[in-house]
């Protein structure tokens, strides 16, 4: 590929000024104090060739289709458990499994309307899925606005390079919301509020999709229908809620009683089929780090196809063979606590002292179901510009898959990189930055 990005690199400071102008931030709580900070942007894009993307697109569609079928199955027939493909302990002991969702039929049978699939590219060019995020995956707004800005600042870059448009993400979202809404009323994006770490994204999506940004207290349920309350006590029917509030806070009358973020009785309206919830409640059972191990098996089970995308080589200490392997090789594996997210609860055996390794080994012996172990993948490093020097850093890719009546893979994604040369952790909450992701047209 002949890529010309010099002008874009030279415009880095201007791009960052524009990011500031548009308030491209994320929030972080440190020691109980909320701070907003700019999300560091690196102007050198991640470039994915047309053929690589065709492969990824096919694999992502396949994976998310299987995950949606799994979710339907778990909350209805449970064939995959009965057939012994996924052990029931992994389903019913998962923190993400919600018994309250048993038998609910979400509009169109879709559970994971927006899936964020985290991938890495190995040095050998092989892509691996690291994680499926099916609850409230965030991050698509950043490459969207980055593209908007880089096109303004360096138009020539986009004349010289055939990059696939990525600003259609809001259209993918609004079409999917319309399909799920099915003409019942308005569509809203429910935010926990200004002090949520992804608040920028919530408000930006509302602007770009034409949905109403709703805050806790704006919505109420009457006769099993959801309404948005106006200043003069007038009300308008809500047909679809793209909620950015966690499952357990969505309905204080059914889940966490102290929640002020949710809508009392929304689950009644949802069960009655009077409102679509995006994503569906209870999806956490499918993006559990333990269930991840079984996703390739789900593809074969539900679709009768060979999985296109590979998982990182993963071991479940729950199985005796894996248990022995993990305890023997703990010092060279990466160990993940299945109940943690956001880059927390991830330890690299190589970084631990003898005593710490022993402590971890004992934790695994005590609660084998709580842990998974993976081989450390030698990621392909990406170039980033640090001050005026090109350096190489670890990076992943969060690809977004939107499912309504059809499943679409957004031709872009959030590339996150670690700013610490010795770290594999790319999460923004832990100081990482981001890049635009270019999918080439030819």
């Amino acid at each position: 590929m002949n890529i010309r990005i010099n002008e874009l690199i030279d415009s880095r400071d201007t791009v960052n000024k524009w990011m500031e102008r548009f308030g491209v931030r994320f929030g972080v709580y440190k020691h109980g104090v909320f701070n907003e900070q700019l999300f560091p942007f690196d102007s050198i894009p991640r470039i994915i060739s047309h053929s690589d993307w065709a492969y990824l697109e096919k694999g992502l569609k396949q994976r998310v289709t299987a995950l949606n079928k799994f979710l339907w199955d778990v909350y209805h027939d449970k064939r995959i458990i009965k057939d012994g493909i996924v052990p029931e302990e992994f389903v019913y002991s998962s923190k993400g499994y919600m018994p309250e969702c048993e038998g609910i039929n979400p509009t169109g049978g879709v559970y994971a309307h927006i899936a964020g699939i985290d991938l890495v590219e190995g040095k050998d060019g092989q892509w691996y899925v690291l994680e499926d995020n099916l609850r409230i995956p965030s991050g698509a707004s950043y490459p969207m606005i980055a593209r908007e800005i880089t096109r303004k600042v360096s138009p020539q870059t986009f004349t010289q390079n055939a990059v696939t448009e990525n600003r259609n993400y809001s259209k993918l979202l609004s079409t999917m919301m319309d399909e799920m809404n099915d003409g019942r009323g308005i569509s809203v994006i429910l935010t926990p509020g200004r002090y949520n770490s992804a608040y920028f994204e919530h408000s930006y999506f509302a602007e770009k999709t034409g949905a109403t940004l709703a805050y806790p207290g704006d919505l109420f349920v009457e006769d099993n229908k959801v309404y948005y309350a106006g200043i003069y006590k007038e009300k308008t029917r809500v047909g679809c809620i793209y909620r950015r509030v966690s499952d357990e806070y969505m309905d204080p009358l059914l889940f966490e009683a102290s929640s002020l973020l949710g809508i009392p009785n929304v689950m009644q309206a949802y069960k009655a089929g009077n409102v679509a919830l995006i994503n569906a409640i209870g999806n956490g059972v499918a993006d559990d780090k333990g269930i991840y191990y079984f996703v390739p098996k789900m593809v074969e089970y539900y679709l009768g196809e060979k999985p296109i995308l590979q998982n990182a080589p993963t071991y479940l200490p729950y199985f005796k063979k894996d248990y022995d392997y993990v305890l023997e090789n703990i010092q060279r594996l990466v160990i993940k606590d299945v109940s943690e997210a956001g880059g927390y609860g991830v330890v690299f055996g190589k970084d631990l002292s003898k005593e710490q390794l022993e402590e971890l080994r004992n934790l695994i012996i005590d609660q084998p179901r709580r842990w998974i172990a993976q081989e450390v993948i030698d990621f392909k490093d990406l170039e980033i510009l640090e001050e005026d020097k090109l350096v190489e850093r670890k990076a992943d890719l969060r690809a977004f898959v939107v499912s309504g009546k059809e499943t679409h893979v957004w031709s872009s994604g959030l590339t996150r990189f670690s700013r610490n040369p010795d770290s594999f952790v790319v999460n923004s909450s832990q100081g990482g930055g981001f890049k635009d992701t270019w999918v080439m047209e030819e």
Partner: protein
Amino acid sequence: MVKNTIISAAKANSLYWLGRYEERVYVTLHLLRKCYDKMIDGDFDDYWPIRQRLDVAGRYKTNEEFTLGIMYDDSNPDTVIAAQTRAMDNAILLREDILSETLSYLEMSLALMKECRGKQEKNVICMQPVIDWSLAFWGSAEQRLKNHKALYLMMMGRNIENLDMLLRFDYDFERIALAYDSVKHYFRQMPNIVDEQVEEQLDGLLVQERFDLGDVEYKNGLLKLINQLVKL
């Protein structure tokens, strides 16, 4: 997508207070520029009345402390930066209505204030872009706000703040009557949120024959009523 046209109580509140605080930024800067000009080479009596009203609590000892304080002291609610921060706090909740382009003028203003504070810029002229961006903000809001009720709420806040500031700074009757007319223009667009009894009282007080801002009781009465006009 079906567009929502109704406004929640919380959003109405944010729209109104965004209008008030953004107008406060503009008027405070305007008054500070007037005062600053007089302080360059004027006598104490030339600038003191306006300086005293801008620094009601008497926080700042020297003219330089006063200028820096009114621009950059965010612990004082009467300063430009404090008003801009509060305008931003409300605007950030309204991105979907006012749109990112409109919001960006406030982002730039706040960023500039922080930058100037870092450099301890003493010349008020450094705030000129804030004036320009404030006007651009209003132009952009008028252009882009598709929900007219939302625009009226912001404009109501803007005009009430303007009236409030003109009264506090003892402007003459003609200016104040004009400002009150503007307020009433927006009341006619959204009569449901106006307290009619308060409006009636104001109508009776804001007449040439009774106008006397030297009468402290009269002036405080007006200010109190103005701040009770909108039921939000």
